[in-house]
């Protein structure tokens, strides 16, 4: 009887330790994600309200989010009216943007008013907490997307 109760209390302690560890990892993940969310929001807003990306802006953003392996995707969308008055869309990818920032003599990537600029950050290695987060928050976001920020470019302050 005594050994049974001992077994139960050991199991209880193990269970509690696991639970506490899970909670700590959970909180760490939330904290890390928050840093990435804030940095992405700041970067996206700055690009949209200034209308350009410089090497400094880009590197500063990369530095802020370099806390875990991530997949970052930039999209710069332009809408143009073609000769038959139809709206056509062009997408500039991250590679083109970075190429312009690093290889162009001006070291600046310019966007135009009414273009769209989107930044999406995904987790490279999905954590086991992702599923739990989805259930708790009833989030609409796809699994592993930490943050997605985007919208219309409001200014061209490089002019």
């Amino acid at each position, binding site marked *: 009887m005594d050994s049974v109760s001992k077994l139960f209390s050991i199991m209880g302690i193990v269970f*509690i330790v696991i*639970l*506490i560890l899970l909670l700590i990892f959970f909180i760490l993940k939330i904290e890390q994600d928050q840093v990435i969310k804030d940095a992405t929001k700041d970067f996206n807003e700055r690009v949209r309200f200034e209308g350009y990306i410089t090497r400094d802006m880009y590197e500063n953003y990369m530095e802020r989010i370099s806390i875990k392996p991530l997949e970052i995707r930039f999209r710069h969308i332009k809408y143009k009216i073609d000769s038959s008055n139809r709206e056509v869309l062009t997408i500039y990818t991250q590679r083109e943007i970075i190429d312009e920032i690093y290889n162009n003599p001006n070291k600046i990537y310019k966007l135009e008013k009414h273009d769209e600029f989107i930044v999406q950050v995904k987790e490279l290695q999905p954590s086991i907490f992702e599923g739990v987060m989805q259930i*708790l928050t*009833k989030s*609409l976001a*796809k699994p592993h997307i930490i943050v*997605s920020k*985007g*919208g219309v470019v409001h200014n061209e302050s490089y002019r």
Partner: protein
Amino acid sequence: MNHIDKELIFTAIVSIAVITLLAWILRYTTNDTVDMYEYALTQATSDATLVVREDRNEDGSNSNYGGFEKGEEKINIDYKGALKSFYNTIFYNLGISTNIEAKNAFRSHIPIKGVVGYDNIVICTYNDIWLPPESYSYFDKDRDLIYRFTLGEVVYVYDINTGTDTKETLDSLIQITTDMTNKQLKNYVVMETINKALTKAASSELNYTSLNLMKGVVFNLVHFDHEVIGGRDIYNSEGNIIDSPGFFAMIDGIAVGLNSERIRLASFGGAKMEVINK
């Protein structure tokens, strides 16, 4: 104190700590989700407002529901472009821009959106049907005149007896009512028109979502972020002044948190609006 008592106390303390932490996480994640919706909505109305305020003189094809005047120039509002911009931004910020199913599901949670224009308000229903515009009109029964106010100084005066329409300014007109200045009357009429149009749309059978509860809702602008759309003053709750066109929208009925609390958020031109249910 024997061994079992100690174990019990230890277990109780740890359980309380774990429950507190769980509660904190739940609250944090729920708030985070509400913040995400709020941010997406304010960014989307800000972006759509940029389109609304853009001069589209050369291309009137998208302006089927009236326009507004800026100085002497007739300017058309690009309703289609504003709506497209609104949806694009809200979907980008919710991370569902490539998920058609999620986008369609979310649309039904945006039962009301529209444009407060220079001389009228136009509402767009949950299924993206633009309702006819409602002018900011006031009928002067003593003089048989209909005043059509604008967000600026201009007033259009229609004489019922002669059938003539003249363009005046608030200052050039005689005082229309005895108990209010012309500017106060204009603000009152603009706000009443907006409130009535919103209430009508909210209680319309076109809105089959949870908006049935919304009869008598009050939309209250409580914050205006100057940095977001560039330095124009808009007041509502106290000052009742809205002096430039903007796009507004509300999110309704999204369930968040463990107890599935339904949230209702509203925004005008990049500013957060308080929604009060009467």
